[in-house]
């Protein structure tokens, strides 16, 4: 076993991702030259991924307070919200973009595993998963390979782990050709008072590592995630971790069981930067330190050196601080579940992390300077208005001709991979295990998840149309928040809080940073309006494609994961037509607006056009009214207008039960804008004949702008008297197109 360490100099520091200034700062903190192991510890802890050094200044401007929040944003592994009845909901979204771009199956699988661990390390049982995926052009064989790998990775991990995937979104755009986005969200439930903190209180308390053995996988994964993805990135394959959902399932059950013994002081999962991150964050949180004997860590290989053990990102591991004298309780539970449980150290009062290997001290660093909010660097980056904004501003809607053949256009648009059903994907996910998925037989705009042991249901959704954010980062991000809230409101829920996954390009690019700053501003404003504080999330920079003539960032993609609540599951509203003979109304203003629509992109090949119309006050007012109408029991179906416009909204309402519709367009608005435009703040509702008068009275009394579109009919579709054929034929296209595109 080599105990001598490589020499340290600026060159070595740079190879580990540190800059000269940071290297100097480490010298000052240490009061001496760090050894290689110590330098490695700083490099991962100060990586973008762990330190948020280029984003934290702006993240702090987001609203992070609310009466329902049980922990402050960033304080614990995930946000925790009071949902009443003595229950809390822990939820968080996280990216696993770079690993998935290199090794889609394991990258996506470990992304799912990591986010679930963040939830159950707090003592919450995960009950639902969502994912938000962005792929490149589906015509590219490389894209199809990535889709297959990511989907089976998510499926194999989540299915075995036994948590249903209840919702999500998938978009295809060539900006993601090289750098796909894989954002995974987990939602868990915990009884009040049974939560566990990621703290290391009580000097003298023993420290345990539990779960899988530590291997050489994922070393420097956090640093890898904090650099540009290049053509050579495939050489970094050892930086991608390998997942084992069976071990994770055992770890889940054992972790939740061990909490009930009362022997646990604190617990933190090991994700990025492994033992380094968990020991430093837990110690820094409690103002304590730790002495850790790395030779006691169970390893998969015999030839691992100390820094490899420290930095390994092997999955399915936890660090637990136990009450001194109650060690046996831990050992018994983990023995029952046939998992490793090894005492590797002790909590100290020194504030330092001291790592030993075979009796020799190999690293000795202070905990506080390593962590976010402690001594980790914080940078303010420059930003400038992107040059491409001029092209967007120059777009002239009058230059777009309304197609003569509406039916043919509708068919073409409807077959877009961004519009059609994602059935080929989601059928590979177990969406029903735990028997809480209310959407299986009755879909809503958000996924509704019953909370057993109460009358409540959660409404959860992920949303972000990155084309809107690209066109206008500020408004586009407000729309992402608004659409998430709208989906929850249209499902009968109350928006409660969000988690975010901020996927952007290189922060050192001032135009990218402009997108980031304005996205945060828009998110903050919208979250304040909807009273949905930000409970946590993650930032993923350096998402870009590298070409011969330079780099091209992905569309800015600030994915919003929103949690909503139904006090009683009876308040649930669904999105589909139930029977013929109901009237269909559009609530909200129709506008002559084609901006950033799928229609403009697919039918007319326009990639750069303004963000669709959006006004935060108008949106908020509409949502308030929709909520009242649902509570008053005045409508039978409710579905918001989003990608593909009103036409797609109507079709999506028609397909579940095969109910048709006959509607008329508004002659004062160009037909393509009326049917396919994506101007915001519009909701379609269907009403039973016996309730129509009450609904109309309500709409009039509340001064809600509305248009009667037509009515539901048996099986067929007609627009302005033109026969659009049978719903079941549209459904066939809807259900099968994506699979055919992927399997071609």
């Amino acid at each position, binding site marked *: 076993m080599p105990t001598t360490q490589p020499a340290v100099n600026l060159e070595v520091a740079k190879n580990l991702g540190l800059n000269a200034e940071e290297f100097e700062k480490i010298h000052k903190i240490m009061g001496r030259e760090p050894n290689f192991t110590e330098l490695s510890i700083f490099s991962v802890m100060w990586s973008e991924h762990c330190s948020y050094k280029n984003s934290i200044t702006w993240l702090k401007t987001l609203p992070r307070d609310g009466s329902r929040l049980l922990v402050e944003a960033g304080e614990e592994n995930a946000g925790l919200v009071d949902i009443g009845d003595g229950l809390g909901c822990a939820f968080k979204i996280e990216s696993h973009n770079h690993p998935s771009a290199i090794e889609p199956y394991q990258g996506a699988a470990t992304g799912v595993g990591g986010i679930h661990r963040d939830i159950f390390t707090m003592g919450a049982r995960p009950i639902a998963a969502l994912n938000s995926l962005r792929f490149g052009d589906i015509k590219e064989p490389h894209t199809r390979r990535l889709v297959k790998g990511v989907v089976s990775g998510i499926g194999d991990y989540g299915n075995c782990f036994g948590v249903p995937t209840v919702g999500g979104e998938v978009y295809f755009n060539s900006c993601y050709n090289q750098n796909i986005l894989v954002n995974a969200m987990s939602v868990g439930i915990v009884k009040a008072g049974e939560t566990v903190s990621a703290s290391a209180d009580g000097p003298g308390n023993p420290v345990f590592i539990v779960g899988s053995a530590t291997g050489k996988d994922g070393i420097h994964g956090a640093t890898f995630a904090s650099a540009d993805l290049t053509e050579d990135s495939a050489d970094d394959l050892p930086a991608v971790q390998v997942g084992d959902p069976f071990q994770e*399932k055992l770890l889940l059950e054992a972790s939740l069981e061990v909490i009930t013994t009362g022997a646990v002081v604190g617990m933190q999962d090991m994700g990025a930067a492994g033992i380094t991150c968990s020991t430093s964050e837990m110690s820094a949180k409690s103002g304590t330190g730790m002495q850790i004997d790395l030779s006691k860590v169970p390893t998969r290989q015999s030839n691992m050196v100390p820094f490899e053990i420290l930095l390994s990102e092997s999955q399915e591991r936890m660090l637990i601080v136990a009450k001194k004298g109650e060690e046996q309780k831990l050992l018994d539970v983990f023995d029952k579940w046939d998992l490793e449980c090894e005492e590797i150290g002790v909590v100290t009062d020194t504030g330092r992390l001291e790592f030993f290997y075979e009796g020799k001290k190999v690293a000795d660093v202070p905990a506080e300077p390593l962590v976010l909010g402690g001594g980790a660097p914080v940078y303010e980056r420059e930003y400038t208005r992107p040059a491409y904004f001029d092209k967007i501003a120059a777009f002239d809607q009058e230059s777009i001709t309304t197609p003569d053949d509406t039916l043919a256009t509708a068919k073409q648009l409807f077959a877009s991979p961004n519009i059609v059903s994602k059935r080929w994907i989601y059928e590979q996910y*177990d969406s029903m295990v735990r028997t*809480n998925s209310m959407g299986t037989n009755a879909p809503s705009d958000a996924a509704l998840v019953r909370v057993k042991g109460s009358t409540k249901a959660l409404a959860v959704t992920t949303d972000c149309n990155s084309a809107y954010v690209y066109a206008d980062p500020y408004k586009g991000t407000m729309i992402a928040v608004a659409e998430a809230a709208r989906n929850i409101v249209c499902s009968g829920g109350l928006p409660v809080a969000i988690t975010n996954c901020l996927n952007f390009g290189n922060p050192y690019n001032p135009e990218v940073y402009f997108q980031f700053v304005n996205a945060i501003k828009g998110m903050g404003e919208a979250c304040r309006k909807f009273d949905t504080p930000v409970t946590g999330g993650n930032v993923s920079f350096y998402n870009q494609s590298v070409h011969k003539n330079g780099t091209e960032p992905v569309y800015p993609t600030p994915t919003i994961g929103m949690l909503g609540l139904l006090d009683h599951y009876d308040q649930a509203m669904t999105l589909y037509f139930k029977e013929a003979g109901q009237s269909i109304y559009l609530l909200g203003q129709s506008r002559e607006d084609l901006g950033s629509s799928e229609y403009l992109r697919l039918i007319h090949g326009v990639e750069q056009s303004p963000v669709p119309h959006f006004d935060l006050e108008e949106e908020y007012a509409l949502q308030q009214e929709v909520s009242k109408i649902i509570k008053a029991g005045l409508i039978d179906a409710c579905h918001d207008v989003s990608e593909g416009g009103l036409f797609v909204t109507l079709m999506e309402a028609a397909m579940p039960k095969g109910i048709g519709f006959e509607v008329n367009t508004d002659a004062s608005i160009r037909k393509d804008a009326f049917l396919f435009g994506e101007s915001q703040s519009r909701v379609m509702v269907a009403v039973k004949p016996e309730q129509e008068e009450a609904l109309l009275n309500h709409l009039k009394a509340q001064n809600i702008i509305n248009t009667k579109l037509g009515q539901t009919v048996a099986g067929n579709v007609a627009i302005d008297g033109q026969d659009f054929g049978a719903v079941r034929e549209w459904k066939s296209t809807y259900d099968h197109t994506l699979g055919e595109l992927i399997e071609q």
Partner: protein
Amino acid sequence: MKFGVVVFPGSNCDDDMIHVLGDVVGASVRKLWHKEESLGDLTTDDCIILPGGFSYGDYMRAGAIARFSPIMTAVIEHANAGGYVWGICNGFQILCEAGLLPGVLLHNDTQRFTCKNVYLKPATDKSAITAKLDQNKAYKIPIAHAEGRFHADEATINQLVANQQVLFYYCDESGQVTADTNPNGTLRNIAGICNEKRNVFGMMPHPERAAEDLLGNTDGLDLFTSLLASTEVAV
């Protein structure tokens, strides 16, 4: 009739089954840890459930390791003594691996995990879980598996059919059994079977996922009520 639900490492439908049996059906139910060597107070009047999930992570083959769990000796004794055993999804796979049911569950012909609603047509009323079903109804019950393609040699299949040991066929909404309604390539659309003595049942679909109004589907509940009703008569 009381129920015992075996929890193997990696079982993940155990809680769902206990919820339906305990909270929905109102039966007496408890968990049985796979390391236990006896079924405790459960007798041959009672039913042992092997739930869905990924016992031992489906390592080697689905169910191949779980059959060696200590409790399986007691489960096999229980079955041989005439007690009811019902395996669902991974439980079905374990029963085949353990030799309590004939045949084997192979990878789906799609080579993909598939989770969706399917329709089942009862194939016989000569089993406790199908006795009280409407033999002409198509029951909507979801599947969620990667290895659900039932396979056995021709003679075994013929015998299963002749003995009315086939419990369900995959069909369409109107009850038609066709190649198009076969979700995984299973022989003759077989979705579930029982043993010769008709006390051991195995099926890939998940009736416990279709047993509550709140979830918009109670077709699966009928299997549980059939079991309870037909065994009451027997007693």
